[in-house]
């Protein structure tokens, strides 16, 4: 139970090429970007990524780390289309398992509950079944006899999530309005790593917040890292909103290999998270 507090680089040190990796958050919201940036600094590759995708997927796709992607969408929210994901798909860079949002949720739930599948009324009649020929249907054993889609469990080797607060044991708390699916990601993975804005004592977690904000429990957590502004440039409310100006810069830079090379050299080539934030701070000063 002890010794869960780790650095982002130590967490990534536990990951291996070829793993199935779940990434929490939703679109461009509360993504564990500090852990993704650490991943980009590592040699880990050939990943199967499972995510409600945002710039986490974009960055890993741009760096050629994804072999297979399991998702319902990839978006930057205020910028609807993720440029790196688009480019990667249009050059056939990786295999895609394209699921509906509810199918994805059922798959995560089955993964957390150690079920082989869960049924859902989604996918029938759509091309989700055509492009995923391995998906099967199941017939209700009851009088209705309905045929439903059997979503296979989304079980992962490791999950990465970002929350507002956590204690050293791995109990983690969200303070914004939406938990997304972070607890399910942690429970559906063999190892789960929580990054947080601030590491606090256990008593502090519920000093000013209701107990139902404690989304992730320590039994489902392998490692914890304190990464202030670690979801940047995605949102992590109420600690901070999305950095829209920087996200726009990211999307613009993604348009050509040259501008993306410049962006990577400036923001992603440092030796750690601190270099990234210093570079972002300097960039913001230039914009004034």
């Amino acid at each position: 139970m002890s010794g869960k507090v780790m650095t982002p680089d130590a967490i990534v040190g536990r990951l291996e090429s070829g793993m199935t990796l779940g990434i929490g958050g939703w679109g461009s919201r509360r993504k564990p970007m500090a852990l993704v940036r650490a991943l980009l600094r590592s040699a880990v590759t050939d990943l199967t990524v499972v995510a409600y995708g945002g710039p986490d997927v974009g960055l890993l796709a741009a760096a050629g780390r994804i072999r297979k992607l399991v998702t319902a969408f990839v978006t930057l929210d205020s910028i609807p289309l993720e440029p790196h994901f688009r480019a990667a798909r249009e050059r056939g860079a990786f295999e895609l398992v394209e699921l509906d949002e509810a199918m994805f949720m059922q798959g995560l739930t089955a993964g957390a509950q150690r079920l082989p599948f869960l049924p859902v009324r989604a996918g029938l009649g759509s091309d989700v079944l055509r492009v995923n020929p391995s998906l099967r249907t199941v017939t209700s054993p009851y009088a209705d006899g309905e045929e439903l889609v059997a979503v296979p469990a989304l079980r992962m080797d490791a999950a990465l999530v970002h929350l507002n607060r956590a204690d050293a044991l791995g109990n983690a708390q969200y303070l914004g309005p939406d938990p997304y699916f972070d607890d399910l990601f942690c429970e559906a993975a063999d190892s789960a790593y929580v990054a947080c804005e601030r590491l606090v004592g256990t008593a502090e977690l519920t000093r000013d917040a209701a107990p139902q904000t404690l989304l992730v429990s320590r039994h489902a957590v392998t490692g914890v890292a304190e990464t202030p502004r670690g979801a940047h440039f995605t949102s992590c409310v109420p600690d901070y909103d999305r950095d829209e100006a920087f996200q726009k810069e990211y999307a613009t830079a993604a348009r050509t290999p040259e501008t993306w090379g410049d962006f990577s050299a400036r923001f992603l080539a440092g030796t750690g998270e601190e270099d990234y934030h210093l570079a972002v701070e300097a960039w913001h000063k230039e914009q004034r």
Partner: protein
Amino acid sequence: MTTTTGTATVTRAEYCVVACAEAWRGDGEVLASPMGTIPSIGARLAKLTFAPELLLTDGEALLIGDVPAIGARSRLTEGWLPYRRHLTMVMGGRRHVMMGASQIDRFGNQNISCVGDWRRPDRQLLGVRGAPVNTLNNPVSYWIPRHSPRVFVERVDMICGVGYDSAAAAGLSATRFHELRRVVSDLGVFDFATADRSMRVVSLHPGVTVEELHDATGFPLPLPAEVPRTRAPSAGELRLIRDVVDPSALRDREVRAR
């Protein structure tokens, strides 16, 4: 084209707002989920006028008890609707969504995933998102701000939202709660109340010609002998649109005056 009712000149965007609002008429106590600016104005107009029971969200995780202007912050929270509860609400059917479409065909199959061959698309778009679950579980309408033959196509490249023919082919579980209410575009209002559940014209917005509609649609669209015109907003509705729901005229950015 703009037309004049009484003293007010009604814009095309305002006809579209009213046409979208009408989609939620009679729905009762369900969540109105509008995607896009004009459907959002429409849902709020409906709630302020003929459909006060509708539930609205702040676009994030809250059900709001007031009807703020587009872009303004809600001051009254009446419920909690994070994504996973939202998906449960979809599957429970107490919701009527108005989605967008990059492509739509005559039976209402909709695509927002990609254009071209799915294995290696010419244009990757959003992904299927929640379109498959939406269309099989709760009433669905569509909003298309620029009616063109690239959107209204003979066949969609990737069926995300399920149309009437696809639902029928998939069987009882697919058709049990499947219902496409209407399609609203910048040219008119359409539904699927035909014998084979293919799309037909309900009304054209004032100023739209039959030729213009045909040129902008990639499949034959049956027209009644006398083409009805989309109803104009009342003076009260116009005041609500202009002064209360959309005072910064964001509607004109989505559908320009013509």
